[in-house]
C-alpha cells in the first residue's frame, strides 16, 4: 500500500486509563443486580496495540462500549490523556463488527462524515476521505455504495471512516469476525501496517487467540461472569515479521499460551464441553 504523507504525519494516539470499571444490570426475573463486568482496570499507553481476548460473554465488548462512552459504567472511570470520558466522542473511534456504514451515503461520504461533523467544508472533507481510502487500499471505491462492496471492502471503508475522524484511541469490536478467513488474514496484515504508520492507540476485541497473537503488543485475557482481567501477555515478536512464514511457529507458540489462559478463563460448564470436543 502506498504511504500517504499527511496521514503518516499525524500525531501519535492518546493514552487510555480504565479505573475499576464495573457494569451491572438488573435481572428481569427476580430484580436482582447482576455484575456482568468488573471491576476492571487497564492502562494503555499511547501508540500501543492492545487486544482484549476472552470467551464470548466475558464482557469484553461491554468494556469496549464503556470506553467508547456509548454505555455508562455502573462504577469506575475511563480517561483519555487524563481527561475523563463522559459520553461518545470523536476522540474514541469505534469500528463495529457489522461495519455500521450508512447505507444511503457513498463510501466517500461515509468516510468524510467525521471531518464534516468536525466542521470541514465538503471539499476538504472529501479530500481527507480520499486520503484515507487510499490508506486502506481502496482509492477507487469512493463513489460506490456500501451494498456494492464485499464484506472485506466494507470493513476497510469502516476503518477508513473511523481513522478519518482522527481519534486518539481506535476501538475495534471483533471487526474481522464476519469476513472469510482469507480476507481476514489480509485485513489483519493491513491493519498492522496502518497502525505502524499512524502510531494509533488501538484496543482490539477478539475471541480468536491467533488474531490476538498476530496483532497485539499486549494481550489482556478476560474471564467471564463477571468479566475480569485474568492475565496479561506481552507479545515481544516484532510486528514486521509476524506475518512471515518463518515466524508462524513462534506466533503459534504465543497463540497456544493464550489458548491455555482462555481455557482457564472459561466458565466451568463450557470448559467441560471444550475438553470433550478435543
Amino acid at each position, binding site marked *: 500500500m502506498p504511504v500517504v504523507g499527511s496521514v503518516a504525519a499525524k500525531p501519535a494516539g492518546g493514552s487510555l486509563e480504565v479505573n475499576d470499571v464495573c457494569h451491572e444490570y438488573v435481572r428481569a426475573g427476580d430484580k436482582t443486580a447482576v455484575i456482568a463486568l468488573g471491576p476492571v482496570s487497564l492502562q494503555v499507553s499511547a501508540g500501543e496495540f492492545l487486544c482484549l481476548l476472552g470467551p464470548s460473554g466475558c464482557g469484553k465488548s461491554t468494556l469496549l462500549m464503556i470506553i*467508547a*462512552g*456509548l454505555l455508562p459504567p455502573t462504577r469506575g472511570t475511563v480517561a483519555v490523556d487524563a481527561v475523563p470520558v463522559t*459520553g*461518545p*466522542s*470523536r476522540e*474514541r*473511534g*469505534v469500528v*463495529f463488527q*457489522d*461495519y*455500521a*456504514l*450508512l*447505507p*444511503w*451515503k457513498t463510501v466517500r461520504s461515509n468516510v468524510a*462524515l*467525521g471531518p464534516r*461533523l*468536525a466542521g470541514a467544508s465538503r471539499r476538504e472533507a472529501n479530500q481527507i476521505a480520499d486520503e484515507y481510502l487510499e490508506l486502506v487500499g481502496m482509492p477507487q471505491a469512493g463513489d460506490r*455504495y*456500501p*451494498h*456494492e462492496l464485499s464484506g472485506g471492502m466494507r470493513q476497510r471503508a469502516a476503518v477508513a*471512516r*473511523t481513522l478519518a*475522524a482522527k*481519534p486518539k484511541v481506535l*476501538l475495534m469490536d471483533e471487526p474481522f469476525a464476519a469476513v472469510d478467513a482469507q480476507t481476514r488474514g489480509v485485513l489483519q496484515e493491513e491493519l498492522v501496517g496502518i497502525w505502524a504508520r499512524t502510531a494509533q492507540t488501538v484496543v482490539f476485541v477478539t475471541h480468536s487467540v491467533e488474531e490476538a497473537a498476530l496483532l497485539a503488543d499486549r494481550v489482556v485475557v478476560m474471564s467471564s461472569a463477571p468479566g475480569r482481567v485474568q492475565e496479561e501477555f506481552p507479545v515481544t515478536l516484532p510486528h514486521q515479521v509476524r506475518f512471515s512464514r518463518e515466524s508462524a511457529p513462534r506466533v503459534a507458540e504465543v497463540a497456544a499460551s493464550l489458548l491455555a489462559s482462555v481455557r482457564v478463563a472459561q466458565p466451568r460448564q463450557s470448559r467441560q464441553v471444550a475438553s470433550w470436543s478435543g
Partner: protein
Amino acid sequence: MVGLDTATLPRVGAGRSRSAWFWARASSLVKLTVPFVFLVAVWQMSALVLGLSNYLYPRPALVLRTFGVLVAHGVLLSYTETSMWRWFVGVGVGTGVAIPVALALSFYRPFARMMFPLINFFTAIVELAWIPLFVLWFGYGFKVIVLSIAYVTFFPVLANTMSGIGQIPKASVQAAQTLGANRWQVALHVLLPGSLPGSVTGVRTGAGYGFRSLIGAEMIAAQSGLGYMIFESRANQLTQRTVAGMITIGVLWLLVDRLYLRPIEKATVERWGLLRRAR
C-alpha cells in the same frame, strides 16, 4: 466469434424486452379500464330500469355532456387546480410538521411514550369535527382547508416515521456518535435518511386521508373547488354536476396515486430495502 456473440445478443435482448414492456403496459391498461366500463354499463342499465328523473339519478350521457360544459366554461379546470393546490399545501404542511416532531419524540423516548395516548386521542377526532372551530379562528377558505388536510396527514406520517426510526440499527447511530455527531447531527445524518421509507409510506397514506378531507372541508368551508362544486350543484338542482365532480375526484386520485405516490414509495422502499439488507 466472440465478437459476433457480444454484438448480436444485447440487441435481440433489448428488442424483446421493449416489446414485452409494451404488452405489459397494454395489458395493464386493459385491466385498469375493464372494471370502469363495467361500472358505466351497470349505471346505464340501472338508470333505464329505475326510470328515475335526471335530477334524482343522472344518466351517463348527461354527465358526459355536463363534463363538456364544465370544461368549456373553464370551471372544472380552475376548481381542480384550486383543490389540488390546497391538497398539495396541506399534505406538505402536515408532513413538514410530522417529521420534525417524530425526530424530537425519538430523542425523548419516555416523553414520547407519555404523548402516545394524546396522539391516539387526536387521531380519533375526525378533522371535520374541527372545522367549526377552524372556521371560527380563521374564517372560510384556504387556511381552514389546508389545516384540516394537514391535520389528517400529520398522524400517519408521524407514526410511520417513528416506526422507521425504530428500525434503524443501533450501530448506525453509535457510529455517528463516535464520529463526533451531536444529537441534531445524528438526526440529520442518520435518523432522517434512515427513516425515509417509513416517512414515504406515511405520506402516501396521509395524502389519501388528506384527499378525502379536502372534499369534506371544501363542502363546508369553501366558495370554490371540487368539494364546493359537488355540494352546491345539488342545492341548485344540478345533480349531474355533483356526479361529474365525484368522478373527477376518483380519477384525480387514481392518477396521482399511480403516477406519483406509488412509484415514489416503491422506489424508496425497494432501494432502502436493498441497502439495509447489504449493510
